């Protein structure tokens, strides 16, 4: 080849006019491309969707379009790339650039029409798609052998213990009973145990007393609230549209659907399918449609001057990225702009996923009650009748107008207002639209008057009266219409996703820019994951089935890892949102796979199955997995720090103990409400407005309406607080509640002075302290020690120790003395509805004690 090249180049030099057929694709071009481009655009890797190992694939091109324009080397991207022309990334990005001669060879081949050899066979990939653990099928591992068989309560423990035994670490003893009860109550329901529940559990000596508690908690409707809220973090649920205008929206029906789905233990596969594609299910129900609100939790930009298409695309991008991180635990979002830097995911594949979500409409679903339907039909009929009458008065056709104009005698014309005369003097086709309109109005007044006047007589005076009558009738109709519209029942609505009849064409967006359209793509899933198995007319429902197919190696692992994270503070895979090659590998890979396979496995229960049919109960049961984890010995360990672990496992990744976890923002509120006895236990409904400090909206573009709820709604659980994306309730933000801009797969657990200020000074928390003081004084035996004990138990469930009793008693005595001397100050700390004969100093002193208890680290911690 080499000796020929100078000849070829000579052949190409302009002006020499020699035939260019000296360049042969197979001999000259193919080896050149293999040498310079093969590592990124060959059989193993196709950066930007481009393959350069066959002439056919060169002509087909990549995500930016064909690589060559036969006959026009100057217009060919390949040449622009190797010469580093403007707007095209210079190629190759690393390694030596092509020589002048080599470039000339490529040009020559293109300019002669880029002839394609027949029967050229593409190379086969030399490496498998990926060896990365997370992309391999889930194989149920066998449970390992352990020495301390006594300790292990279920298979989870054997996996944990096997590793601990290998490291020669002993697990921690079980937590104290009351600690365990508070822990599991908070983890499963987000509420502390009641005094009765504590007493019952401490008195229950049956060996399965704890398992009975778990059953009770899983059956509680508060379980759905607790675990529903975890899911709402992923769903980026909020009650407003986001961006800068951030207008309110109504989508709480979706929130309630999630709570209900958890409570009725909807299997996770159904749970996922209904949210991703409920609208496409055969015989989709209203519930299924509400579930599609999952992907309507995207933001809506209502700012002036925006490009609507840009923000429609932003929402689709969010849907792809959220689906990727929530179900697959992959950082698919990286591929919006370029091929993934680390994982085997390409930009083309990103837009193939994008194509699944690109063809949706975003309607609002009305959810009327039967009474509302009836009422609405009545009002609609009423409105239609009124409108018909109004139309009869208002209707003016051009023909009617022309006939009227023709019928006007000069005398009649002279009686018309001057303005009208002036218009009539203009030729019909010379009148402006505004003049037309003036004429129509006048005609309507006069002509309609005439109908009435005919009845009343022809005199002018009568005519005027008739005119007034008609005008009066019109006015009355308009008013009746506006009144009727007010009678329309206020129907609850929710945002849903609906597939379009005609799908949109999806292009690759070059560099992630929706204006720079690249190659057209059709829906498909990434090649590194199991194929869909179908090729024709793919839609979101196919994708949803694929997401929860048993072959999918990610969904079950990712979901189980997130469950684990909620119970231990960190997942088995610590990077819960990155199961790709840059994520941390699992600490206990077999345990993760065992959990995943157990999660998917059809579970057979002794009782006959209600659903699923054929003598077996369906898999993907969430409650069963919760039960397994919280009944394990691993979960039940004490969370106390162990000096012996500090060197070998400082971050508690091996789980030789439990972790102390600060409660989530909503639960901080919930435990305060429960302890003070103020909690309203209503499940679901429109979001509410608990009090918040003044001035929260000084910093938002559009001031928000926040009229504090009164009555029971003032004391609802934290998850029902109305969430404005641009300014969430400060009591939530300060404890790291997400603001719902993106899917939140793990919350921070920060520890800041602003949290201290909230618990100390917030009006809401002060009300809780007053509530707690009142409750203790009312419910406990009238004895300081008994009351202190009761108050302490209300807040942290356990009994106070000697030192704690002394500290609190000292505070109580001192405050009581101080307040006795300054009754005014005492009065200020008491609620306004305190009975007149109440001991104000005593109450105020108890408010002080209550404030201390509500500010304890232990109070906002799951031990």
């Amino acid at each position, binding site marked *: 080849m080499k000796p020929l090249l100078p000849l070829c180049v000579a052949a190409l030099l302009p002006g020499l006019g020699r035939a260019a057929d000296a360049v042969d694709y197979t001999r000259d071009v193919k080896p050149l491309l293999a040498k310079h481009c093969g590592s990124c655009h060959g059989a193993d890797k196709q950066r930007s969707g481009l393959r350069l190992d066959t002439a056919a694939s060169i002509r087909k091109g990549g995500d930016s379009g064909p690589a060559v324009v036969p006959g026009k080397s100057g217009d060919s991207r390949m040449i622009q790339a190797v010469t580093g022309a403007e707007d095209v990334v210079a190629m190759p990005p690393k390694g030596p650039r092509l020589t002048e001669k080599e470039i000339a060879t490529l040009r020559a081949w293109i300019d002669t029409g880029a002839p394609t050899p027949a029967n050229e066979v593409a190379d086969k990939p030399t490496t498998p798609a990926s060896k990365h653990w997370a992309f391999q099928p889930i194989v149920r591992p066998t449970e390992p052998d352990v020495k301390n068989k006594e300790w292990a309560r279920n298979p989870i423990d054997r996996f944990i213990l096997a590793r601990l035994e290998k490291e020669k670490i002993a697990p921690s003893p079980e937590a104290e009973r009351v600690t365990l009860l508070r822990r599991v109550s908070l983890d499963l329901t987000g509420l502390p145990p009641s005094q009765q529940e504590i007493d019952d559990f401490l008195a229950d000596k049956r060996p399965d007393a704890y398992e009975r508690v778990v059953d009770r908690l899983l059956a509680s409707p508060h379980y759905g609230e607790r675990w529903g809220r975890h899911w709402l973090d992923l769903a980026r649920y909020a009650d407003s549209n986001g961006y800068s205008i951030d207008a309110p929206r109504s989508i709480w029906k979706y929130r309630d659907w999630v709570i209900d789905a958890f409570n009725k233990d909807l299997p996770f596969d159904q749970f996922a399918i209904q949210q991703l594609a409920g609208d496409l299910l055969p015989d989709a129900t209203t519930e299924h449609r509400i579930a599609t609100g999952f992907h309507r939790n995207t933001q809506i930009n209502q700012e002036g001057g925006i490009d609507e298409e840009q923000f429609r695309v932003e929402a689709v991008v969010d849907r792809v990225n959220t689906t990727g991180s929530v179900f697959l635990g992959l950082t698919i979002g990286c591929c919006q702009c370029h091929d993934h830097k680390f994982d085997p995911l390409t930009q083309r594949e990103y837009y193939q996923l994008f194509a699944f979500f690109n063809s949706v409409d975003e309607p609002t679903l009305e959810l009327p009650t039967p009474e509302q339907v009836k009422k609405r039909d009545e009002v609609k009929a009423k409105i239609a009748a009124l409108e018909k009458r109004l139309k009869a008065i208002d209707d003016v056709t051009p023909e009617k107008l022309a006939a009227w104009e023709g019928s006007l005698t000069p005398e009649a014309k002279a009686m018309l207002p001057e303005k009208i005369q002036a218009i009539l003097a203009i030729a019909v086709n010379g009148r402006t639209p505004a003049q037309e309109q003036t004429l129509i109005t006048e005609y309507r007044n006069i002509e309609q008057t005439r109908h009435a006047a005919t009845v009343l007589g022809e005199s002018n005076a009568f005519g005027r009266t008739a005119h007034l009558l008609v005008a009066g009738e019109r006015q009355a109709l308009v008013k009746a219409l506006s009144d009727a519209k007010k009678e329309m029942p206020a129907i609850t609505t929710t945002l849903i996703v609906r597939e379009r009849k005609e799908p949109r064409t999806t292009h690759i967006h070059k560099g992630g820019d929706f204006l720079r359209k690249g190659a057209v793509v059709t829906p498909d899933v990434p090649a590194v994951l199991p194929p869909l198995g179908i090729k024709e007319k793919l839609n979101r429902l196919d994708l949803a089935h694929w997401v929860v197919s048993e072959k999918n190696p990610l969904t079950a692992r990712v979901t189980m890892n997130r469950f684990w994270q909620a119970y231990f503070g960190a997942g088995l895979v610590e990077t819960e949102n990155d199961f790709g090659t840059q994520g941390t590998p699992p600490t206990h890979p077999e345990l993760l796979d065992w959990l995943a396979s157990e999660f998917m496995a059809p579970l057979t229960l002794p009782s006959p199955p209600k659903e699923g049919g054929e003598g077996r109960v369906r898999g993907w049961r969430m409650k069963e997995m919760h039960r397994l984890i919280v009944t394990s010995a691993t979960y039940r360990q004490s969370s106390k720090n162990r000096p012996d672990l500090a*060197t070998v496992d400082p971050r508690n990744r091996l789980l030789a103990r439990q972790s102390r976890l600060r409660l989530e923002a909503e639960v901080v509120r919930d435990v305060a409400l429960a302890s003070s006895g103020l909690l309203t236990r209503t499940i679901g409904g429109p979001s509410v407005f608990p009090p918040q400090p003044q001035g929260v909206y000084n910093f938002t573009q559009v001031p928000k309406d926040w009229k504090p709820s009164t009555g029971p709604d003032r004391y609802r659980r934290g998850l029902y607080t109305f969430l404005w994306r641009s300014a969430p309730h400060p009591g939530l933000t300060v404890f790291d509640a997400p603001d719902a801009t993106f899917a939140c797969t793990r919350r921070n657990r920060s520890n800041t002075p602003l949290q201290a200020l909230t618990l100390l000074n917030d009006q809401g928390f002060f009300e809780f302290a007053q509530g707690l003081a009142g409750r203790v004084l009312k419910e406990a035996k009238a004895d300081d020690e008994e009351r202190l004990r009761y108050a302490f138990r209300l807040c942290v469930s356990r009994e106070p120790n000697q030192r704690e009793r002394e500290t609190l008693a000292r505070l109580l005595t001192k405050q009581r003395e101080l307040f006795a001397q300054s009754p005014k100050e005492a009065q200020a700390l008491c609620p306004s509805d305190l009975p007149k004969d109440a001991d104000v100093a005593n109450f105020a002193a108890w408010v002080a004690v209550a404030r201390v208890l509500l500010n304890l680290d232990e109070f906002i911690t799951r031990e």
Partner: protein
Amino acid sequence: MFSDNPLLLHTRRHFFRECAVGLGTVALASLLNEGRAAEKEAELVNPLAPKKGHHRAKAKSVIYLFMAGGPSQLELFDHKPKLTELHGKPIPEEFIKGKRFAFMDSFTKEPPKLLGTRRKFDKHGERGTWVSECLPHLAGVVDELAIVRSLATNVFNHAPAKIFINTGAPQAGRPSMGAWVTYGIGSEARDLPGFVVLQSGPRGPRGGAPMWGSGFLPTTFQGVPFRGGGEPILNLSSPKGVSADHQRDVLDAVKELNSAHLADTGDPEIATRISSYEMAYRMQTSAPELIDLGKEDRRILEMYGAEPGKASFANNCLLARRLVERGVRFVQLYHTDWDHHGGGGENLTTGLDKVCREVDRPCAALIKDLKQRGLLEDTLVIWGGEFGRTPMGEVRDTVGRNHHIEAFTMWLAGGGIQPGDLGATDELGYAAVDDRVHVHDLQATVLHLLGLDHTKLTFKFQGRDFRLTDVHGEVVKKLLA
């Protein structure tokens, strides 16, 4: 606290272990392989404790005067006689071909016409710097300023553009500049948050909390908005009727019980909680004194045009000085209504006059005041909006200017900044032609002045390292003293 940062969590656990077994800071230092044990130790208890950056810092603190809406550089700093000469002529097509603007429909009818300014420009200061008549006070301190006329950004709508200049990305959710800075070097303030946000103008800026948010960084680093009028920090005052003594009694009891529980569980998170409560209490004590401008000298109040008790940009400038005096690392002042399209009050005549009047005197006073106190040399002052405005007119009620991303002007002063003019636009002021400074370059430069290398200040999230400047940005060397 650093739940997303395994190393820090790790070192914290180590710290407590080492202390528990009696090893001192020497052992800890060798453990960390950094000679910064005392610093680390402080950080374990207080994540906002001051930290060393990557190199020696020129500036200790930042006052960022954010002119929300996009001030018109062509009325204030970018003197373009040619534009005035061609006033009323259509803009040559090569300038706008293929370009996108907000409110595109305003351009669809006919090619937009050039709009010369009606404002008079003069040369000021020793260098003869062009500043318009709109900013007479600022013109008086122009020798202290580095005026950059060649800024460029990517995004042309308000909220995304503001979020972009603050966080390096146009979508909400990344950490803001102030959060990155306090994450990187903590704060000198013991009694106050490290990053404070102040606001003046009729409403909050578009973009909202994400502009000073901590994104995926721990929330400790997010900007704390001080509210104009009333309580500067939410829940700063004790509940109504609770005396200071009573509050202290409650806090003492909380501390005693938390300490006992720390001894019982051994969880260092409780130690952080105890220190958080102490900081909260100090904030309760110190913040009211901080915001009480009544104690300032009358001449100082006059210089700023500040009136104690009133919410204004002038008060905020004075407050900003008091904040950096107390060691607060990053203070950001938002002043809204610089969006002069030409409609309603948003015009380039009375509308612009009004906002200029509100900021001109206080900005100049801030520079003078910082200088006379010796604070200017280590306080970086930044002035500017999220983008600039077009040389073409936009016809609404009056003729105003549209959003423009190709060129705008900002100025910087103080800590490590070389005063002077930097960069230039073409003769119509359409695009930056000399020394173009992209927003990411500005961000890199701000971090550099604070002793931070923008390529090294990273946080791992969703599987990759993130930074303020994304994958872009170069320190603007010409801005450095």
